[in-house]
């Protein structure tokens, strides 16, 4: 076997060995939502617990909380999967408690930041709670 063909074959074999399944869309969406959550706290200049933090371009004091968010969502996802597979319960049903931004009643971390519209709504809600409200 020539060097070139051996090289080609090795490359082909390596490619085949390295094949992995496509990620589930839900996994990609979850990761994006965590990113949106970080972006939101960066833009609002707040940490997830409601405290004021310095805006430093993404590392705005909440990274560990976002990581906790990732872990919590993964736990919730597997719990929801189990619940749905058992034939019960929509995770969005009434009675399910979500964490809220301290003193504002705004869900935190944001549950959906897929577009800037959502971002604006949360920002407006936050500002209303902090500046306009009693």
């Amino acid at each position: 076997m020539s060097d070139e063909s051996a090289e080609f074959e090795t490359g082909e074999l390596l490619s085949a060995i390295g094949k992995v399944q496509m990620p589930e869309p839900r996994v990609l969406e979850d990761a994006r939502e965590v990113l949106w959550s970080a972006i939101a706290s960066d833009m609002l200049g707040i940490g997830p617990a409601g405290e004021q933090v310095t805006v430093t371009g993404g590392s705005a004091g909440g990274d560990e909380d976002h990581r906790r968010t990732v872990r919590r969502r993964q736990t919730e996802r597997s719990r929801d999967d189990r619940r749905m597979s058992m034939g019960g319960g929509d995770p969005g049903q009434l009675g399910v408690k979500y964490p809220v931004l301290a003193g504002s009643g705004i869900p935190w971390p944001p549950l959906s930041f897929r577009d800037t519209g959502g971002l604006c709504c949360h920002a407006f809600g936050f500002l209303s709670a902090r500046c306009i409200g009693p």
Partner: protein
Amino acid sequence: MEPDGVLIGRSVHGRPDAFVDMTRRHEVAIHGYLARRAGRQAADDLLAEVWLRAYAGRFGYDTERADARPWLYGIARNVLREHWRNGSSDEPAVLQEERVDPWDGVDARLDSAERAKAVISAVRGLPAAEREVLLLVAWEQLTPAETARVLGVAQGTVRSRLHRARVTLRRVLSERDAIDGAGVSNER
């Protein structure tokens, strides 16, 4: 399509949605990178961490660089190293698994399964630095220049590691062919 550098630059100047657009382009590739090395479950967990770190580090990105992939792979690599520090093996997951038939065609499978085992064994036996270079090129389709950026080393270093890894693999396969050939002769 706008270059990644433009999108990252825009995200720095008040348009964070542009950063999310950039990540969308590479999310499957980065997840694949993580999954090949740490397994699918871990990849699901680590992907968001890569985005968070990339977003936090976007101010340091050279927006003249059109393609953000090497930068993202570098971040993903750091995330993986921390993951491995927690006790997991740093050997690529797909080399640890018993992958019986990664091939679609039956003919190819019969012929290649044995050779694939030899390749896997040879890759596992490579020094970690050479293995990493080889797999970034073979699996992530990066050029040696891009690989150098991922690893933060000189291009020459990448080229020499890649060369050594390929020579080792070729030698292993040749030796295997020789053994197989001898086996066939003895049977006759």
